């Protein structure tokens, strides 16, 4: 699972959970894959991100080095975009769990795919 997905993913489908965001990451295996750098896509996606959550996620995986804690209003800087690209699209969680901040429900991640399936009792 890439961090861009983590930045969008919530557990609000759980019964009684309002926000379900951000999901806490507990990673046991992290992989780096090379993805082509597309500066235009990265600069388009940055306003949509919750930057604090991204920074926190990157930090918990030990990949926050060089990543500013806040986004400067002008983020056309190539170095910054490259760093954001690396964190968003190249860092992948292979194995681990995601934890719902409200209910504490854990979602396992295996082979890089988070399992968000709910049981009958958990559906709204």
């Amino acid at each position, binding site marked *: 699972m890439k961090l861009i997905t983590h930045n*969008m993913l919530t557990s609000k*489908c759980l019964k009684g959970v309002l926000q379900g965001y951000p999901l806490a990451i507990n990673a046991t295996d992290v992989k780096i894959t090379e993805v082509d750098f597309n500066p235009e896509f990265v600069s388009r996606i940055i306003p949509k991100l*919750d930057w604090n959550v991204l920074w926190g996620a990157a930090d918990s995986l030990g990949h926050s080095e060089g990543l500013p804690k806040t986004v400067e209003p002008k983020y056309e800087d190539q170095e910054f975009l490259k760093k954001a690209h690396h964190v968003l*699209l190249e860092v992948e969680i292979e194995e681990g769990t995601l934890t719902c901040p409200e209910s504490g429900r854990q979602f396992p991640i295996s082979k890089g*795919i*988070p399992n968000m399936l709910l049981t009958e009792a958990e559906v709204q």
Partner: protein
Amino acid sequence: MSKRPEHQAPPEIFYNEDEARKYTQNTRIIDIQAQMTERCLELLLLPEDTSCLLLDIGCGSGLSGAVLEESGHMWIGMDIAPAMLEVALEREAEGDLVLSDMGEGVPFRAGSFDGAVSVSAIQWLFNADKKSHKPVKRIYNFFSTLYAALSRSARAVFQFYPENESQLELLTSQAMKAGFYGGVVVDYPNSAKAKKFFLVLMTGGAAPLPQALGTEESDSLQVKYAKREASKNARGKPLKNSRAWIIEKKERRRKQGKETKPDTKFTGRKRAGRF
């Protein structure tokens, strides 16, 4: 027993390893999926030359995702069948995958996506595979959470296979209830095989539905029928194997969206004797 996969088993069971393998080996399935995804992308009306973040609902083995990648978009796919997602991993899909049931809702933050596509997936929502499943509720839940996950003025295009009229109606009415505008676009309505249903949903204000393929002459259909009736009464059907008969047949095929050679001066002409 019916041939429809939805009638055979729940999706996570129907799409087992055997079924999933078809989606990597069967070139016909691959071609059809690619074609339908291209048409979905066309109907999405994304801004040109910008790469967007798209949601692929029922992404399966990532065949549709491959088309999205080619067009330069980043995608996140959700599917309920683990075997299909495993194939997507083998194919090294560039998009990210999530194992999730669309009937339980779209588990993404508000305004995340610039658009959503889905190829042959939402007909599964009509099933009640578990005792607790209520199809109408699941459809509404799906559409309302999808509406939230899309950014303003984004579109969602679903290609699907409805069983009957009432399914179409149920789907559109639940989508409208969830806040979407839009409707169903039917490509090649005159053909049994090439006929395809696309549910086009829009979040930002009512806009005219896109034109379906193979219906360009639908306005003059009435006139045409009248003309044909008149000529039928005058001369009866054209003589079999005559030029008029061939041209009429080709016209019919064209309306069905089948590949047809153009009419030329050679159409229906006899070959020279020495051939």
